Each structure stands twice: as C-alpha cells, then as structure tokens.
C-alpha cells in the first residue's frame, strides 16, 4: 500500500528532525538615539539607528539553567544601554547546520554583533565570520579566534571544584553521581574539577558519571539521574541545562549540586550550591567596545576574581565547617594561590596526568580529554 509507505516516510523524516526547530526572533525594540563615535572595525553601524545585538540560544530562557543565565545577560545589556541598543535573540537553535540559517536571519535583521552561546555552533560561526566580514561574532565556550570572531567563557571548573567540595562533604558513602551532557573537554574538565573538589573533603570519594548526549531534555536527564540513584550514589551533581537532576535528588532524599543558575527553589532540601555564570558585565563590555570602535577579537576567560563565575548561595544542609573550607579555597583561587589543575594529578588509569608543581594552562584545560582518578565512567562517551 503506497499510502502507508508515504505516511511512514513522512513519519521517519519527522522523527529524525523532531528535536529540531529554529527559534523565533524575540526582539526588544527601542527608539534610536544617534551618538557620534567611530564604527568598530568590521562593523557597519552608522549610528543613525540603534546598535543591534543578536543572541543565539541553544535552549529557551525558561530552562532555569544555562540559557536563563544568558538571557539575564542580554537583559543587562538592554537595560544598560537603553534605547541606544536593540537586542534580539533566537531560542531553541540546534547545534549544527541550522545555526547558519539563524545567523543569516540575524544578519539580515541588521545585527552588528552576534553572541552565539553554545560550543556546538563553532563550525558555523567560523564560516559566518568569513562570509559576513562587517558583522562581529562572539562565541561562548569555543576556541577559534579570528579577526572578527571572539571566544569567551570563564573558569567554571574553579566553581565546579568548590561544588565538588560541597558534594564530597555531604556524601556519607563517598559515592557521588554526576549527570554529564557531552563527552567534550568543557564537560570533562567540569567532572574532573568536581571530583578533585570532592576528594579534598573525602579522599575516598568517587564520582560515577552518565552521559546524556543532550544539553537539555528533562526526560533523558531524569533517566540518567535515576540510573545513578539506583547504582547507590547519595549525592548528585550535574552539568545539564535543566534542574531535573535536582528534582530526582529531592524525591530520593539525596543532596545535589546544580549548575548555571541558582536552582535552589527546584530542590530546596537537596540543594548544596552551584557554579553560576554572570554574563551581563561581559556582554556590556563587548557591546560598548563594538559601539566605540575599540572592539578587538580575543580569547576571554572570566573567573571567580572578576565575578564572571559566581558560587550560588549554600543550601541549609551545608555545615559551617564545610562553608568555611569552601570559602577559604575560593579566596585562594581568587588570590591566585590555588588552581584545581595544579599537579600532581593522577589520571583515571593511574598514570600521571599533571606533574607535581605544574599547572595546566587555559588552552590545556580546553583540550582536556581524560578523567582524573576517582571518576567512574568512560571519558570517550
């Protein structure tokens, strides 16, 4: 029956693209207030209309995690510049070729600078920077810098180390679970830092991981967290964009460290703390430079010291002693006297990962592909 066949082929196609949708443009319009300044290199801004700033989100601002924090940053830009700037955003943009389409739409909408806020946009962004030399591009968490393409992120791993300390102190059994999105360096160093933090408080602590292969999918995140719970962990951590792992921890009476945003309200009893990102000041700095014509491409790496990385408030179950220990380490990181990735660090398989006295550079951290001793799981995914 050809009808059945036709139906099936339609369904097959839609199953495969089901998670794929291009975000609508959210736009905050404002009146123009021209100012005299020289245009940024590569920028077409004529100052007769608002400076247009585009954002590309991998999820929705309502994810209570990564994209939520990004959107808080966008709103900070809007309120700082008022009518001189118009921000636009595209949400739910899948990583991959569809990003090109979204970039084109933003460029056509007159974007002067575009912030793409996920690692997987990198190939498309590199291509777009070549194709549209008059538009400035910035990408979060990537590594490729060119004349009109900047990279920016920050030492989330320092926060993850502190989160790990909270987890290690909270665990009675020393068995901790961690729900991880993708087998990429960003997530691997997160797990490594978290594990080393946990081991600082409890040298015997182990961190069992599950890969979800998604930034955001509550059903999948829940399945992963439940698998860890069934394997006997008593504290959960995650690097996902939604707080689902915390909801699972709360339901099982376990403790939890979140990620990206303050997610305490999702699991008030389970909550320990989280690494959160404060994107607003960076975006304001970059937009300002672009408007003034002083924008230069760079590889920017924020930190706890410049408040790009901020620890979320402690949950009620974190003891005074633990708080003190964590705050002391945080102070040491800020002062520059401590870096979680200073050797000796032993790899999962027992070999030496980092020699005593050596500290990994940011670029070395960016290419980290191995787990430290104590992580249970395969770093290849």
């Amino acid at each position, binding site marked *: *029956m050809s009808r059945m066949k036709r*139906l099936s082929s339609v*369904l097959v196609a839609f199953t495969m693209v089901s998670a794929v949708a291009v975000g609508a443009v959210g736009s905050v319009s404002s009146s123009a207030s021209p100012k005299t300044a020289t245009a940024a290199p590569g920028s077409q801004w004529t100052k007769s209309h608002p400076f247009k700033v585009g954002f590309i989100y991998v999820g929705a601002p309502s994810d209570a995690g990564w994209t939520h924090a990004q959107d808080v940053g966008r709103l900070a830009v809007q309120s700082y510049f008022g009518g001189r700037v118009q921000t636009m955003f595209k949400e739910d943009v899948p990583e991959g070729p569809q990003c090109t389409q979204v970039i084109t739409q933003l460029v056509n909408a007159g974007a002067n600078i575009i912030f793409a806020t996920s690692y997987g946009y990198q190939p498309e962004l590199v291509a777009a920077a070549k194709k549209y030399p008059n538009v400035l591009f910035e990408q979060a968490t990537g590594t490729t810098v060119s004349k009109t393409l900047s990279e920016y992120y920050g030492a989330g791993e320092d926060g993850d180390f502190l989160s790990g300390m909270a987890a290690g102190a909270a665990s009675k059994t020393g068995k901790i679970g961690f729900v991880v999105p993708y087998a990429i360096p960003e997530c691997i160093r997160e797990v490594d830092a978290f594990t080393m933090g946990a081991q600082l408080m409890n040298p015997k602590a182990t961190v069992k991981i599950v890969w979800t292969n998604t930034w955001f999918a509550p059903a999948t995140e829940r399945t992963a967290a439940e698998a860890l719970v069934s394997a006997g962990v008593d504290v959960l951590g995650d690097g996902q964009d939604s707080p*689902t792992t915390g909801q699972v921890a709360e339901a099982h009476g376990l403790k939890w460290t979140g990620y990206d945003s303050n997610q305490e309200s999702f699991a008030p009893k389970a909550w320990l703390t989280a690494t959160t990102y404060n994107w607003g000041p960076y975006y304001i700095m970059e937009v300002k430079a672009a408007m003034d014509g002083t924008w230069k491409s760079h590889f920017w790496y924020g930190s706890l010291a410049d408040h790009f990385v901020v620890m979320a408030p402690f949950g009620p179950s974190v003891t005074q002693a633990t708080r003190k220990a964590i705050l002391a380490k945080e102070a040491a990181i800020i002062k520059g006297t401590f870096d979680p990735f200073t050797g000796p660090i032993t790899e999962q398989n027992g070999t030496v990962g980092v020699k005593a006295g050596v500290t990994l550079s940011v670029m070395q951290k960016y290419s980290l592909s191995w787990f430290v001793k104590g992580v249970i799981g395969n770093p290849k995914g």
Partner: protein
Amino acid sequence: MNSNIVIAVLVSAIGFGTPLVLAGLGELLAERSGVLNLGVEGMMLMGAVTAFFVSQKTHGPTALVLLLAVLASMVAGSAMALIHAVLSITIRVNQIVSGLAVTIFAGIIGLSSYLGQVWNIGGVAGHHQFNGIDLFGLQNLPIVGPIIFSEDAFVYASWVLVLAVLYYLYRTRPGLYLRAVGENPAAADAMGINVTAYRYVHTLIGGALAGLGGAYFTLALAPIWTDGLTAGFGWIAIALVIFAFWRPDLLVLGAYLFGIFSALGPTLETRGITVLPSEFYSALPFLMTVIALAAASTSWANRRVGTPASLGIPYTREEG
C-alpha cells in the same frame, strides 16, 4: 534504592513510557476512526504548558490543584485536536498537512511557548506534583514493590485507561462501530452510524489524552515548564501506534520497551558496562522508531496488521 539492574531499568522505563502510553492511546483511538493526527507533539506541549499554568496559579489542596491541572491539560489538548478535526473531517484537507500544521502552530516555537511567556511560568519550580503512592501498602515487596506498587497516580490511571480502551474497542457496541468507521466508513454510514460524529469524538479524545501525556511531564516527570520539553515524545507516540499494530495491549508493551531502551544505556553505564558508546543508547529509541516504521510499511506488514483501511482518507458520503 533498587540496585538490581533489571528493577532499576524497569522502574525508569515506566516513568519514561507513561506519557507515550497516554498520548499513544489517544492517537490509537483517533486512527481507529480513520483520522491520522500528526499534531500529537503540539497537543502534548499545549497540555504540558496548560497543566503547569493551572498547577502554579491555582491555590488549594494539592489533590484538587492537580486534578484541575489534569483536566485543563485535557481541554487544551482537545482544543488543538478540534482544529485538526475541523480541518480534516469537515473541510477534508489532507490529514498529514493538517496534523503537521497543529504541531507547528502549537509546538516548540508556537502557541505553547508563547503561552509559557505570557503566563510567565517558565523556569520556575513547580508548586505541586504527583508523587509515588504506596499502593495497598505493598511498596516494600521484593521486585514488584518498586515496579508496580509505588508508582504515581498518573501511571495507575494510564493502566486503567489501557484496560478501558481494550474493553471499549473489543467488547462494546460503540467500540465495534468505531472499528467499522475506521475500516469502511461508507458501510458504517449505511448502517446508520454517524461517521462524522465518531471521528470528531475520537479525535478530541485523542487530543485530551495527548494533553494528559504532556501534563505528565510538567506534573510528574520533571515539574518545570520550558519550551519544547516533550522533546519528540509526540512523534514516538505516533510511531508506537503503528508499531503496536493499532492494538492497545501491544501499545503499552511498546511504550515500556522504548522506556527500557532509553534507561538501558545509563543504567549499564552506572554499572561499569560500556560496551557501546552512550550516543548509541541515546539514539536507540529513535532508531527503533525508524525501524518500526520501515517494517510497518512493508507489504507483508500491511497484509498482516490491522491498519484501519480508511486511515488518512477524509470521508465523503456518495450521494445517490
């Protein structure tokens, strides 16, 4: 905790499978009447957002709030199904096009996301949720306790629904009429069965159940609203109906099978069994969908399985 790997996988599979059972049953009823509705994903999202809105903004005892939220999700799902019904039954447009239109209209960048913004319910923790019930006090029985006797009310309702639909389809007169409408609407019409009414009612019930499936996300699975959180479950539900040869009993098995596949990877991983890369397990439910659909479209399957003969064809009464 259930350290036993089989129990762990099954418990997780039921949670994962429940929205599929609900939405799948709805689609099954619609398709049995001859109406293919590809709007399931959109109807689920509408159910999810509406249920969460009601559960956040209604004040009262949790049980009452949840009941209202569930009812609201069914109304929202039906409302979307009504669009499809009017388009495909009354106006007789192509059912595939109409169903896709519903999903696009209500879906991840459509009405559901818009409502989430207008209602301002995105990214906040749910006030109320369905929790596991210690059914008959048998929660602590070995093996079956954690799997069968400690689920939430949603899961029990889905089991009752499966039995009810089975009984309805095969043991009642309206059920017989429904099957007749799906197989041969002209003959059913000649018998005096109101084909249009049957198609409308079952398409709307289908929408209500899809809405319920969506509500399971925001009221039980992960109580939060954010755009597109059903993440493709609507499409899997449609495939499941074909996979289950339009039979409710096989549908529930299929839904849990999908759940097992999705829970298998992470559970094996936590037990240190990593023979295959995790990406493989992540893709498995979708791979299964593609295989099931490909298999169901073979001529052998078409001869053997119960595809409602009028599925996808708008009914026009032939005037003498």
